[in-house]
C-alpha cells in the first residue's frame, strides 16, 4: 500500500506503513531535515508543518491520513519573504531548532489574521516552544510583517 500526497508543491508517493509518522517520512524519505524532532509527543512544535494550510505536529500524524494531502514544510516556504527577513532583523532565531516550526506557525497565523493583535500572536504561537528567545523577538518579527500590532 502506498500513500500519495503533495509535499512543497511536488507529488510524492510513500510506501511506508500507514502508521509511520509523517515526521519520519519527511526527514528520512524526502530528506527534508528542516522539520525537527524535539519531543515526539506533540508538545513542542519543532516538527510543525502545514497540512492543507493547517498547522499540525508531524510527529503525531500517521502517514495513512495524508492521502492526497497538501503538505508544506519549512523548505517549501518562500526563501526571502518579508517574514524571513523580519525573523533575521528582529532576532527571532537564536539556536534555531524551533525556528522552522515557528516560521510555519507564523505563516499559518498571518494567513488567518493579516493584522494580528499581540494576544492573537501569543495564542497563535502557543503550541511552539522556544527555550531561547522568551518569544519577544518573535512577536516583534511577526508584528513587523503585519505593519505593527493591531489595536485591541
Amino acid at each position, binding site marked *: 500500500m502506498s500513500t500519495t500526497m503533495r509535499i512543497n508543491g511536488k507529488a510524492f508517493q510513500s510506501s511506508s506503513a500507514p502508521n509511520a509518522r509523517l515526521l519520519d517520512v519527511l*526527514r528520512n524519505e524526502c530528506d*527534508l*531535515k*528542516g*522539520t*525537527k*524532532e*524535539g*519531543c*515526539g*509527543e506533540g*508538545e*513542542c512544535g*519543532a516538527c510543525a508543518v502545514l497540512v492543507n494550510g493547517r498547522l499540525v505536529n508531524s510527529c503525531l500524524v500517521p502517514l495513512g491520513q495524508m492521502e492526497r494531502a497538501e503538505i508544506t*514544510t*519549512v*523548505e517549501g*516556504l518562500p*526563501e526571502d519573504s518579508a517574514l*524571513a527577513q523580519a*525573523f*533575521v*532583523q*528582529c*532576532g527571532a*532565531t*537564536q*539556536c*534555531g*531548532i*524551533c*525556528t*522552522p516550526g515557528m*516560521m510555519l506557525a507564523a505563516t499559518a497565523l498571518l494567513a488567518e489574521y493579516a493584522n494580528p493583535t*499581540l494576544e492573537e*500572536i*501569543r*495564542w497563535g*504561537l*502557543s*503550541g*511552539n*516552544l*522556544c*527555550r*531561547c*528567545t*522568551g*518569544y*519577544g*523577538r*518573535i*512577536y516583534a518579527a511577526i508584528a513587523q510583517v503585519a505593519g505593527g500590532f493591531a489595536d485591541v
Partner: protein
Amino acid sequence: MSLTLVKQRTDQQTASPRRVDGVAKIRGTALYVDDLPCADVLHGATVRTTAAGGTLQEVVFDPAIDWSEFVVVTARDIPGMNAVKLLENDQVVLVDRAFRHAGEAVVLLAHADPEKLGMALKGVSLVELPNTAPIFDIDAALAAQQEIIPGNIYTDYLLDRGDVAEGEHLADVVIEERFLTPSQEQLYIEPQGMLAHLQKDGSILVEGSMQCPYYVLDALVQCMGMDKDHLRVVQSTTGGAFGGKEDYPSVIACHAALLALKAGGRSVKLVYERGEDLRVTPKRHPSRTLISLGANKAGELQFIDMDFAIDGGAYRTLSPVVLSRGVIHAPGPYKCPHIRVRGRAVATNHPPFGAFRGFGAPQSIFAMEVAMDRLARKLAMDPAELRRINLLRTGDVNPTGDVVGADCFAHATLDVALEHTHYYQRLAEYRAWNAAGHQTRKGIGLATFAHGAGFTGNGELHLASRVSLQALANGHVEILCSNTEMGQGAATTLVQIAADALGLPMDRVHLAQADTSRVPNSGPTVASRTCMVVGELIQKAAGQLLQRLRETAELAAPHDAQSFAAACARLCAVAGDTLVTAQYQPPTDMRWDEQAFLGRAYASYAWAAYIAEVEVDVLTLETRVLDFTAVQEIGDAVHPVIVQGQIEGGVAQGIGYALYEDVLWNERGVMANDRLTNYIIPTSADLGFMHVVLLEGGLGAGPKGAKGVGELPMDGPAPAIVNAIQQALDIDICQIPVKPEMLLELTMSRGN
C-alpha cells in the same frame, strides 16, 4: 551614581548587523546532529542501572536474541581509563561493578534498525544489589548516616570577612529564614546526541551537539587511550544548551566512540529521545539556604550569615565550581562589614547535577533577595529604600573584600528601574486595588544583583586560552577558536568584534567551525566569557595581524577592504605566515585568594535591577506576570538585538523557575515528570513583552568595555516575582516554584 556616566541604549535594531547564522536557521538548512548526512549508520542505545546505587552482579542477555547482529559494548571494551574526564575521575564511563545512581550506563548497543534496537534493549537485564536507604535530600546527606563519599561532602567553602558575632551585636533588627530552590531542567529543544566515525587510518571523529569541544576531546583521549592526533571533535549546529551541554556531551561522545570502534567502520549515531535526555543529563543543583540578616535602625546591613548547600548528586562533576560561584554571589551587591557564607556541595544518589545558566548564583541570590524583603518589612521600610541604603558604590568594600572601582552601577540600575516602572505610583495603585476586594491581588517586587562574568578568580589564568586569525589570499579572514555558537549569538558577535578591529565589513570575516583538528583551545563556552574574554583576545589578534600586514606586506593606514585584500595577497605570495595567535594574559590588578574567598573574584560584574509586577487570582491562586522590567548595566552592547534576546530568553527561564518548573523525583531518585506534557516551561501564552533597558558604562573587561551577559538574566526573576507575590498576598514564601497549591496552603495557614 549620576546617570550622565552611563549611556542608555534606544537604537537596538539599527545598531545590530544581521545574524550570520540567521538565514540557514530560518530556511531550515542548518544541520544539527540528527540531520548530518551519514550513509549506512547504526543507531546506538544505552542499558542503564535501575537502583539508586548498589553493585552490579550480572548482565544477562536474552538467549532468544541473536546478539551477533548487534554491536555490544561493556566496560571491558574500554581501551583507556573507565572514567569521565572532569575535575575528578570519580564517574565511570560504563558501570563495571559499583554504581551510585539509577540511570548509569552499563551496556551500549547498536543496530541499523531502530525497532530491533528497541527490542534488544528489553533483552538485556541487570542483576543489581541495591544499596539500602539511598539519600535524596541535602540535610539527610549532611546528617551522613549513610555515606556515599566520606561525610557526603564534595566541597566545603567558607567566605568569612569581618566578625558575624560583632555584627549581631550591632544589629537592631534580625531576620532568619530557610529557603529552598528546586532542580531545573535546561530543556534545550534539541536533545543531546553524537555521531561517531572510525576512520580508515584508525582515528575517530565525533560530531555532535556541544558547548566545549576540547572538554569532549580530553574525555575521549582518556577513555579511548588514544592520543589527540587520532581523535577529532567537531561541533554541529547546537540547538540550545544553557549549560546543559557543558559536561554531559563528553559522556555521550565516549559512548558513541566506543560503539564506533567496535562497529569496525560503520558510523554510530547516539541521539537521546527526550525522556532519556530528561532522566539522565545534568540539571540545575537544588539548594537549601539558612540565612540570617541584621541591620541597624537606619537599615544599614550589619551582618549576613548564610549556610548555603547544594545537592551535587552522585558524582562530583562540576559541583565545586558551581558552589564557588554560588558562595561569591550569595551576599549580593551590598556593603556589609560582617559576612559569613558557608557553602557545601553534598553527595546524594540523584544523577549528578551540573551547569545551568547562572551556575549556583540564582540559588543563593534567590535566598538573599527574598530575605532582603523580609528585613525591609521588619524594619517597616520600603524594599527599594532598603536596597538604596545598602547597594555598593565606588570606593566601598564588596563582599569578597575588594575595593569597588569606577565600574559600579548598582544605584544607576535601581534608579532607572524605579523610574521606568513608576514604582512608587504602581505600589500605591496596587495597594488600593488589593484593598478594594477585587477578584485578584497585585504586587510589585524587585531584586538587585550583580553577576560576575568569566571564570572565577584565577580560572582564566589556568585556561590560558588561545585564539588565531588566518588571513586568506582573497582578503578574507577566518577566526579560529573553540568557542561555540549555541544560539547565544557568539558566531555573530565574534565576527563583529573581529571585523570592527580589522576595519573590514563583516562579510569578509568568518568564524571557522569548532573542529579540534583546526582550532586552538580558547577555553570552554561557559560562564558568560565568550564575548568578553575571547572577544578581547580576538581584538588583540586583529591588532597583531594588522601590524604584520603593515610591516611585511605594505598595508597602508588607513586601509579599506581592497587595500587589505591586496596586502593579504602580497603576504601569501611571499609565503609569509598569515596566521596570528593571541593568548590570554591576566590583568595585573587581579588578585584572588582561592582559599579565603577574598580579592577580585571576577574581571567584571554586570549590574542589574529587575522589577516584576504580578497578579494573583484569589480563587484559582494562579499567578500571572503582568509586566517585567529588566534593567542592566553591561559595559557595552556589542550587538544590541542579540543582547536583548539573551536578556529576554533568560528572564523567561527565570519566570519558569519562579512559577512553573519543578523537577519531580521518583523513589529511585530519577526525574519522574520526564515528558514535556508534565515538565512545564513557559509558552507564548504565558509571556508578554518584557521591558529590557541596557545601560552601558563602557568599563568592562571585554572589547569596548563589554561584559558577559548570558547568565545575568537568570538571577533576578525568581526573587523579584516571589517578592511581588508576597506583597500581593501578604504572605511569606520560602520556596519556588510558586504553584497554586503552595499558595493555597500559605493563605490557609495565614487565615488560621
